């Protein structure tokens, strides 16, 4: 494997060799249970030292993907490789992975210290460090320096989560796998902990695969995100790209609030496919809306274009394309108000600071729209 598993804490780990094989690679991996494929022909590459997140609705196969990497499941077909070498048939105990589960799975019959030290029965602590020192070091790392003699039952949910993290890291794994480790915690704690998880990951620069159904968490914590639907990744990209340039309608609607609209192209100015962005007019419900497409999108009049405009880009009474709509519903969220508008039978979502009611006109500029697809359902 590419890096020393006994990596000292704080090693920044330089930028990885671009030619090095990925830390984790899934190559055409399928996992079937009976007739249904929980994971369907997935190909993914996780880079050395990367914080990689699998996000998707429940039942999409993200946890199964993680279990395939951990070795709790074997793929029905395809290959899982660590640093370029297949791990087919290698049991979980020989994969040098650390796993944190949603319910933490602390051994209830052992103290916190014994939990953290359990993996050291099978792997030696780093040179010159005793077992007890290693346990203390890890508890220090997760900000629970005095918890070694406590019983798991006496800990709060957030503390248990951190102990589980320390336990997974103690043997110095090559890979950290986190399966919805925060979904049982309340929202405020979750936000605090995710900062801590990310800090620890950066300090150790340990390759991490994180599973969550919470798209906001995925955006906040990851280097790259794979949005999974029905066992297949729909988009694998850094959080900003996933948010600003969703590859599919599903991604556009799953990640953040969004207004997805579709219509026929009525006017495409400029020459076709010269690689430069250009503006087209799309007829949505009789209204020609002006959309800027990026150079890669090749459209001609008559094409069916699907695009999205984020609520924060819909402005009241401004923008090149204007839509006259009626306020249907308003949710006061504190910082902003989330207003649902009815625009000719279509729902539009906008975010405003000021309360809205009755008839309003909202608009957006061509560059605020993102084209998702051409001539697809």
């Amino acid at each position, binding site marked *: 494997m590419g890096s020393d598993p006994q990596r000292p804490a704080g090693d920044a780990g330089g930028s990885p060799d671009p030619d090095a094989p990925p830390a984790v690679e899934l190559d055409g991996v399928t996992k079937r249970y009976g007739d249904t494929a929980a994971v369907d022909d997935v190909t993914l590459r996780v880079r050395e030292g990367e914080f990689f997140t699998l996000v998707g609705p429940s039942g999409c196969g993200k946890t199964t993907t993680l279990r395939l990497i951990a*070795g709790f499941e074997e793929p029905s077909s395809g290959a899982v490789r660590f640093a370029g070498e297949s791990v087919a048939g290698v049991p979980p*105990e020989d994969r040098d992975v650390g796993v944190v589960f949603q319910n933490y799975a602390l*051994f209830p019959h052992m103290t916190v210290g014994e939990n953290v030290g359990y993996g050291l029965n099978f792997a030696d602590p780093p040179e010159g460090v005793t077992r007890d020192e290693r346990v203390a070091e890890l508890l220090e790392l997760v900000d629970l320096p005095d918890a070694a003699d406590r019983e798991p039952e006496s800990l709060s949910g957030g503390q248990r989560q951190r102990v589980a993290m320390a336990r997974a890291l103690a043997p110095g794994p090559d890979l950290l796998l986190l399966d919805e480790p925060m979904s049982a915690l309340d929202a405020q704690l979750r936000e605090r902990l995710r900062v801590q998880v990310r800090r620890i990951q950066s300090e150790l620069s340990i390759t991490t695969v994180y599973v969550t159904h919470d798209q906001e968490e995925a955006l906040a914590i990851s280097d790259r995100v794979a949005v999974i639907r029905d066992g297949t990744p729909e988009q694998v990209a850094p959080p900003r790209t996933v948010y600003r340039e969703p590859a599919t309608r599903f991604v556009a609607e799953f990640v953040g609030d969004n207004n997805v609209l579709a219509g026929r192209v009525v006017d495409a100015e400029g020459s076709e496919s010269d690689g430069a962005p250009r503006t087209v007019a799309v007829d949505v419900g009789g209204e020609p809306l002006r959309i800027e497409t990026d150079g890669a999108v090749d459209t001609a009049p008559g094409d069916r274009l699907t695009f999205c405009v984020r609520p924060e880009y819909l402005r009241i009474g401004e923008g090149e394309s204007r839509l006259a709509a009626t306020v249907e519903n308003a949710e006061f969220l504190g910082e902003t108000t989330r207003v649902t508008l009815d625009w000719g039978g279509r729902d539009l979502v906008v975010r405003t600071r000021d309360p809205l009611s009755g008839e309003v006109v909202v608009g957006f500029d061509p560059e605020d729209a993102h084209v998702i697809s051409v001539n697809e359902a």
Partner: protein
Amino acid sequence: MSDASRGAAGGRHTLHDRIEGRLRGHLLTALAVVTSVTLVVAFYYPVGTVLIEAVVVDGAATLSVFAAVLRDPFYFGELARLFAGESPLAVARALLGPDRRLGIVGFTAYQAALSTVASVALGLPAAYLLARFEFPGRRTLRSLTIVPFVLPSIMVAVGFVATFGTNGTLNAALSTLGLPRVDLMFTLRAVVIAHAFYNAPLVARVTTAAWESVDARAVETARSLGAGPVRAFFDVVAPQVYPAVLTGAALTFVFTFGTFPIVLALGGFELATIEVFVYHLVRDLSYAEAAALAIVELVISLGVLLAYLRYEARNTVSARGARPLPRRSLLPSAPTARELLPRLGLGAYAVAVGVLFLAPIASMVLASVTGGDGALTLEHYRFLVDRQQTGAAFQVRPWPAIRNSLAFASASTLLALPMGVVVAVLTTRRYRGRTLVDAAAMAPLAVSGIVVGLGLLRGLVFGVEVAGWRIAASGAIAIVVAHAVAGYPFVVRTVAPGLEGLDRSLIESARALGASRARVIRDVELPLVWPGVVAGAAFAFAISIGEFTATVVLATGGDAYTMPVAIERFIGRRLGPATAMGVVLLVVTGLSFVVIERLGGETSGL
């Protein structure tokens, strides 16, 4: 990841570690193989030889023995005429007539049915009391319902003789009150009452569990939709409790159908059941006929059990996270008929049950210290001591019986524990063919001890030729394996639920941290299900101490007799020494339970 690349990653796994890891990885497999071999040697092979004995006569396969048994009115009563080819109408008329003959098989089924009805009638009020009322000692009483199940049946028989016998405490009490004496001994009634003693607590136990898992919200929903309390009970509670009552009834029928010591001691020869008669045939060396009869018994028992299991599979509803119905206080809250009547009924029931369950034990203790003239005496214990010192070689002496019982129970517990744990691990995992493994491992519960004992006697004890070598085990070894086979299903039953309830991610966490599958069992699973393991050990020990059926077959003519066998030898001639021996058995059983509990802390129930 290849071994080479891992070696490069800091040398965490030396060659020695790898070899050790391989061995550990196969420990479970090795234990599973040992368990299978034990099962084959001590159960499947012996039972198989018995089956073959019934269909192979003088080296030729034949069904003639079966045919003879089926057509013999001695066994099948009027039904035998049906098997012999007579018209069903004539048989039906004869069955309805006043002098119908049931035969031994018919009688066995008849007494089992009566015992089932009695056990259900006696068990249901207890379930009502335990599930719906709160009172001091409720939990203790609930855990006590398991006790009759592990009481040595021969001891219970002695207790019943001491209570209901001609000179028993019942008649003593009746004559003090100036009432006529009753003679219950060697009647069907005594047998049925003894069976109810054993099985009513079982019915109460399973029914209570089902009743407690009824979700109060379901009842509240029914009430809010307009159902009165009685209607809500019949629409919501009863359908959930009813399958459990059926479970209790089916198990009671199977247990009492295969009954042996109770009928042997309380029924005499006039009331012989199949099991008792098989035993007599064995003693008369009519092995083929005994085997055929045993198979008939096995088929009927398994048939009932399978029919029930199919029913259960269709009707099981899991009630997870249910909020149980609130319990009522045993003290009435208001002097109304609705508050008072059920409590008065339960009070009367409690008195009757107290007499039924405490009288046999108390009478046994009392009889052991009462002389023929009714005065207190220690002569029965003195008899045991004298017999120990002066008894002839062919006579049953007390000390070897006690020593054998303890030795066999310890050895069979040591054997049953790993077997039970391995089977529990194997049957709580998910894989194809799991049901088959489960059924094969649980079969000893349903097969009569006589058949196992007979098979072991004819096979291992008399000797087997394997590749020119003559292999023969002593009676003692055969008894130990027979007891282990009889006891380990209880280890499975107490350990498996704990394993099933274990969070899978605990096991997976340990594996991700580097522990092999076998190491996870040692470090995580066993410590967490330890109370179940201890309870299983207590069961295996108690089953062995009390086991009579297989032991009496295997101890024939040898000196490998145990306390229950000794009691049976005494009971025919002298009740006094039998009760004294019974008290010794009671003390030894009680003490071993205390020891196991102390060693293992709190035990969990079945």
